[in-house]
């Protein structure tokens, strides 16, 4: 458990709802849920996950901190926005889901080896290098995410898609040398640093 996690546990004790309201993006909406179930029933992922938004919101109120923060449900959300559109109380459900995922990751409590979480990290690391996504490297990183032999197998499987993208000029083999990026590299990185600074300041306040 991280130092940060100990700090927030200490501060909020048994009131997980308060903790969520204070620290999770759009978390103060959670108490507005009336448990009607429309979000759960509207989610296209169906029974692919254990905790629907409806259930997560009830678990938060019931103080099931460990189960919520280690759930993989938030990571499965595809941001289809069906739930937001349907919720009779207009809860920003998708945003809360992402907020919870982010919070869990910050505290080091998110599930290990969760593929969408891994991909999110790969995508971020790839994008922040030059300000443009390097499709070739992102694809390769993704295929080799679970080791060398599986990577080779996956690459062969995806060969025809890769070729199609190449002919459609969506994939450039030269990207392997570093790839394209935004013009103002220094400015781009300064912007990211500033964003990180703001986030860290926020993080520093957790539990204080």
């Amino acid at each position, binding site marked *: 458990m991280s130092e940060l996690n100990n700090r927030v546990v200490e501060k909020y004790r048994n009131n997980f709802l308060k903790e969520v309201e204070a620290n999770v993006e759009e978390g103060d909406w959670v108490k507005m849920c*009336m*448990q*009607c*179930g*429309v979000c*759960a*029933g*509207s989610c296209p992922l*169906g*029974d692919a996950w254990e905790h*629907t938004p*409806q*259930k997560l919101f009830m678990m938060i109120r019931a103080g099931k901190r460990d189960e919520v923060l280690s759930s993989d449900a938030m990571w499965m959300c595809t941001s289809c926005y069906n739930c937001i*559109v*349907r919720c*009779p*109380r*207009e809860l920003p459900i998708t945003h809360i889901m992402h907020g919870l995922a982010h919070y869990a990751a910050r505290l080091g409590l998110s599930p290990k080896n969760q593929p969408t979480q891994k991909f999110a990290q790969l995508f971020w690391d790839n994008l922040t290098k030059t300000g443009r996504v390097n499709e070739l490297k992102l694809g390769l990183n993704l295929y080799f995410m679970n080791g060398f032999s599986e990577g080779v197998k996956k690459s062969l499987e995806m060969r025809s898609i890769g070729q199609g993208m190449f002919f459609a000029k969506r994939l450039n083999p030269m990207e392997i040398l570093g790839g394209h990026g935004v013009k103002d590299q220094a400015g781009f990185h300064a912007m990211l640093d500033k964003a990180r600074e703001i986030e860290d300041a926020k993080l520093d306040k957790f539990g204080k």
Partner: protein
Amino acid sequence: MTDVVATNQTILVVGGGISGMTAALEAAECGKDVILLEKNPSLGGRVSQLYKYFPKLCFPTCGMEINLRRIKARNNLRVMTLAEVTKVSGDKGNYSVDVKISPRYVNENCTACGACSDAVSAEFDNEHNYNLDKRKGAYLPFTMAFPQRYVIDPAMIGTDDAAKAKDACPVGAIDLDMAEENIQLNVGSVVWATGWKPYDAAKIQPYGYDRFDNVITSVELERMMDPQGPTGGKLIRPSDGKEAKDVAFIQCAGSRDRNHLRHCSRICCMASLKQSTYTREKFGDEGKSTIYYIDIRAIDRFEDFYQKVKSDSTVNFIKSKVASVVEDKDTGNPILKGVDTEGYKRYANPHDLVVLAVGMEPSVNFNDAPVDIVSNEFGFIEANPENGGLFGAGCASDALDVNRAVQSATASALRAIQVVNQVAEAED
């Protein structure tokens, strides 16, 4: 020309539903001079479209008959149908009200023999049955209509059918040259009892009211149960006429929802509980009702009724706001999808027929009416001293059941009486 004498000691009641009839009668029976305006060709309002009343499960026709007898007994109460208010000016104790009267094309000689109706062939959507069937172009709105006088649909004017109707009438009651009239009334106080309308179910896109035949509304079910309704009192499904033995009710269809009506419509839980008894009435133990709900709001004394329905083994309750309805192409069965809050289990349940317990909105939105009156965000009239001698009654003021609508109407009649009494005292 309609000749109506009114003074600033007259009370005007707008809307001839159960609330308007009650307010008008209470005031008239206290000796006041009352005019009751109704925009339809008959008094009765939405109650005349119900099959049975909760909680007693008696027939609304009975109360209607009593009220009509009371109305006929009073010569200080005048009823005007096909009449709508177009403008209100003036102040408490002295209002001037512009009224538009549409032509009925049938005068008071009509004996309601129905010869005109037999003579014509043109048919139109039957609004009394929520357009589920057709009525003739010369018609009586419903059996108990008041006044008992036929109506010629305005679309008939100029057609051969209209001439046939006129020729068929044995007492010369049909006057095809009747024209719209605009009159002005001077009154002391106005009671608004314009009632409610069902929320437009087609707007609730995931429930497919506009796409699937076997998804209907609660108000339509009331008409289907009526022996004089569109199905002759048979509980059958629209797609294939099969008996609807397995009926699902979706609560809060359009209510308690920020995408639709934000308020709780208050009567729809009770309406569905009542309607679950219709399935039992038709099919006994073979009938099955399933009520999908967020929470059941059987207000105050009605808790008993809820408990009674709950103890019926043919009625099943599922705590869940249904997420969507899809149609099984082979059987025509609507399939309800969602997650049961008790246990968080997913379901996909087929039923024969789905009834949407639609919410209530004011039939006249008073934020946007030809009268300056304080109303809330949903368009219902608020009780407010600024309203002077204008009062809301029944569902024009809130989503109410009949019992509460009548209480509210009586209260408004009392307030209106106070206004005209003050006028009378000042003039003495």
